[in-house]
């Protein structure tokens, strides 16, 4: 498999500029003759679609939502990083590059990460010009806040709604292009397959979610901006409709899938309260600045937290990591919570929660100060749980949050299928084995506003007047494939609901391919998923009609793909016989229970190739070259 990332030669600092000087361009008069398909309208998709349309391309935008503004980028709270160095505290492109590489535990491609850091400052300029109301200081200058794991203040924010404001900026730019007639929107249209003709992506197959009709659309390039696959775990901070179908179907048509087991689990979420739960809500990690995390020292403790005296409380992060205490990175904090609960010290009705306590902070700083810092988060928690964190500690537990893995892309953000691009969370390129806070928004907008619009012409230019329409037999064949799959799912009429199978898949992944993994459990999970897959294709029950709005069918189709994604995640976790970042293999830990990397054997991206069926996946590798940063061990003791 050709995994040439096409990294430009020359010094790291000059690669991006020199690349732009040497790639093919499509002239402004010819751009309207190209049709570009963009799937998804989160930060990556909306920014790419609006940028490409403004350049003159004819852009077809597909979304399963009713409106482009609903995409889940909207839920990002904290902020967006950019190395503006407004605070003059030592920030620079190199510093942001270094922090991102180290945060990713040295498992990302240096050239891509450096370019991300270079582009970050332009993003802020672009968004402000669109009218994004970033927080300002009294003198009218932009304000910054600090985020986990770094020593500078480089995060720009709009209250706790940064994702929402950035998405509205991109959405408004997109609607501007709809008004100009250069973007054609296809709302309530779910991509169900990719059409490949002579090895090149030429279009997509989608389902009209109102009528059930299967239709196709052709273009000279297809851009997938469909987010991550974290919803495979069922319970996650993803939206309930987030799914992996677009990238998975592209994978089955030949796009390689990199590092599927790299999934970030965020330490501070509102815990699962029972089997009815459909969604886990994140509580900003800024709470760990003042909240103390603890569990009772006695197993099966039944007293309310306020009645447990100080000496019977186990402040496990403070005891185990005296230097960083409650502010250890996300992966470390998450694992420690899991260990405490697995050992029987957890609290709450399920025994899978830990306390995050503001009692001492309130006593020391006063309730008003705490309220001014965290009031909206305290209110949000109380709204959901009915308990006031002013009176009793938060109950929190880690939850699946973000996928570092995704479709493999080269320096142009093109996948292994020419003409198919993946941007934002859908690709694998920038975060290695762990993502830093406030970096996902940065990557989505770098890809969408600045990188893809400048690289896509390189692949399009040679295609001038080389068009393939939906009348090509490959389209009819792909439509027949999709119809066949839908008819099969509708015809089984067994006794398991798609939701019940999804929940069981989620439990398997969570227990065996979550915060802590080992070979035996991963093998067991693969067997278990094979059984669930068999059950799905022999016993699933979908009601209603395929030619109607049918949310049960929509879920069933997504679950079918989640089963295959989940299996590959476990395979990847099994084959990566080291620990790194989020990927904690119990066999590879230090004496203190920390991650032990194996750079000699695993300094590469694992790039999976679909081999015709789930059991035939082939593992390829793209070596990571440490040219500018030498990998080091992270310690938080």
């Amino acid at each position: 498999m050709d995994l040439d990332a096409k990294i430009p030669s020359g010094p790291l600092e000059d690669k991006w500029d020199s690349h732009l000087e040497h790639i093919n361009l499509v002239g402004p008069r010819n751009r309207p003759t190209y049709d570009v398909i963009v799937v998804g309208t989160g930060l990556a998709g909306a920014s790419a679609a609006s940028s490409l349309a403004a350049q003159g391309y004819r852009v077809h935008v597909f979304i399963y939502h009713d409106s482009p503004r609903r995409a889940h980028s909207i839920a990002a709270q904290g902020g967006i990083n950019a190395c503006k160095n407004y605070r003059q505290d030592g920030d620079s492109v190199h510093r942001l590059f270094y922090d991102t590489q180290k945060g990713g535990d040295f498992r990302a491609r240096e050239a891509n990460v450096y370019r991300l850091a270079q582009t970050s400052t332009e993003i802020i300029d672009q968004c402000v010009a669109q009218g994004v109301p970033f927080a300002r200081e009294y003198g009218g200058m932009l304000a910054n806040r600090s985020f986990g794991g770094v020593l500078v203040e480089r995060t720009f924010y709009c209250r706790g709604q940064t994702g929402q404001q950035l998405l509205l900026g991109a959405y408004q730019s997109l609607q501007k292009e709809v008004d100009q007639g250069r973007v054609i929107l296809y709302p309530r249209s779910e991509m169900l397959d990719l059409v490949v003709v002579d090895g090149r992506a030429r279009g997509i197959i989608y389902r009209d979610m109102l009528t059930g009709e299967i239709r196709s659309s052709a273009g000279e390039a297809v851009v997938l901006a469909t987010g991550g696959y974290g919803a495979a775990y069922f319970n996650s901070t993803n939206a309930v409709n987030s799914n992996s179908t677009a990238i998975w179907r592209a994978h089955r048509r030949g796009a390689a899938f990199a590092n599927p087991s790299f999934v970030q689990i965020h330490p501070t979420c509102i815990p699962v309260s029972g089997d009815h739960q459909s969604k886990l809500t994140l509580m900003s990690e800024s709470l760990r600045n003042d909240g103390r995390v603890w569990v009772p020292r006695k197993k099966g403790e039944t007293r309310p937290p306020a009645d447990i005296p100080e000496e019977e409380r186990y402040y496990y992060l403070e005891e185990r990591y005296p230097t960083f205490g409650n502010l250890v990175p996300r992966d470390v904090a998450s694992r420690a919570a899991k260990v405490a609960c697995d050992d029987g010290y957890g609290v709450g009705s399920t025994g899978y929660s830990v306390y995050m306590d503001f009692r001492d902070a309130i006593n020391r700083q006063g309730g008003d100060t705490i309220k001014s810092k965290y009031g909206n988060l305290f209110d949000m928690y109380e709204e959901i749980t009915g308990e006031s964190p002013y009176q009793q500690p938060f109950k929190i537990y880690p939850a699946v949050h973000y996928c570092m893995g995704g479709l493999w892309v080269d320096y142009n953000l093109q996948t292994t299928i020419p003409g198919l691009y993946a941007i934002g969370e859908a690709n694998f390129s920038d975060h290695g084995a762990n993502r830093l806070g406030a970096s996902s928004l940065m990557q989505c907008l770098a890809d969408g506003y600045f990188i893809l619009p400048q690289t896509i012409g390189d692949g399009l230019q040679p295609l001038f007047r080389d068009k393939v329409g939906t009348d090509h037999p490959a389209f009819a064949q792909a439509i027949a494939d999709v119809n066949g799959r839908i008819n099969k799912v509708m015809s089984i009429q067994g006794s398991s609901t798609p939701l019940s199978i999804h929940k069981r898949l989620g439990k398997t992944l969570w227990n065996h391919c979550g915060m802590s993994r080992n070979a035996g459990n991963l093998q067991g999970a693969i067997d278990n998923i094979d059984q669930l897959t068999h059950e799905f294709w022999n016993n699933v029950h979908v009601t209603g009609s395929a030619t109607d709005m049918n949310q049960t069918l929509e879920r069933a189709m997504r679950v079918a793909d989640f089963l295959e994604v989940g299996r590959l995640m476990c395979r990847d976790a099994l084959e990566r016989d080291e620990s790194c970042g989020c990927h904690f293999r119990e066999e590879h830990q230090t004496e203190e229970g920390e991650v032990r990397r194996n750079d000699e054997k695993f300094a590469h991206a694992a790039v999976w190739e679909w081999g015709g069926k789930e059991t035939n996946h082939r593992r390829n590798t793209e070596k990571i070259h440490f040219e500018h940063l030498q990998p080091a061990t992270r310690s938080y003791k």
Partner: protein
Amino acid sequence: MNQQQKTLSVRLRIWRQEIGNSHGKFAEYAVNDIPVEASFLEMLDILNEQLVESGEDAVAFESDCREGICGTCSLVIDGLPHGEGQCTTCQLQMRNFTDGATITVEPFSTGAFRTIKDLVVDRSPLDRIIESGGYVTVHSGPKPDPNSIPIEENVVEDALDASACIGCGACVAACPNGSASLFTSAKIGHLALLPQGQTERYGRVRKMVEAMDDEGFGSCRNYAECQASCPKNISIKYIGRMNKDYIHATIHGGDDRGPVKAT
């Protein structure tokens, strides 16, 4: 409901309407053994599992983020858009309902919002209002440094109060006239406050107000029901500002895109 109770039961009167049919009717369902920790939408998930298990078509309703920010969920509960309390439907919790209660659930159907199926409505008119002018015309590419144009902190906060709108359409569903004035004025108000929004300010207000009328939304009669039902607490002061700008644009002419010419 007392503190010890772990589950509750409700009777639901839910609007059911087939796709392509302009008429529908209420259907009644009982849902028992709902955990008190469940949210309102999770209670509907439980109902749908029951329906699918018994071979029936599930009730179609929309939701996505389930944390009150995407604006997808849209149910009228016991006559109120998003139910009791100023939050989105997805943030309603079952512990706030009475055991044994009968709850009526309807779509946000009103005026310009057409019911598609069951509890799902078509809110695309709101997208078309934004499309008509709810943006600043800038392409992607190098831009001036933001600190070269200082913006007062309180002005940005005011703009954020308006741009907090999630586009759910509760304001329209709550309005006796089915007006989209709060939604439209929130976007106009956001951009009119910022220096970046000045160039197109009066052309924008004209186009957006006209788009709102063209979509068939009613006119504002100052009932203020929109503000009362807005999950993001958006103030009707933005409607006042929109009207002021609109009058200004009408009197002074102002071309379709550019600012009003000095007279």
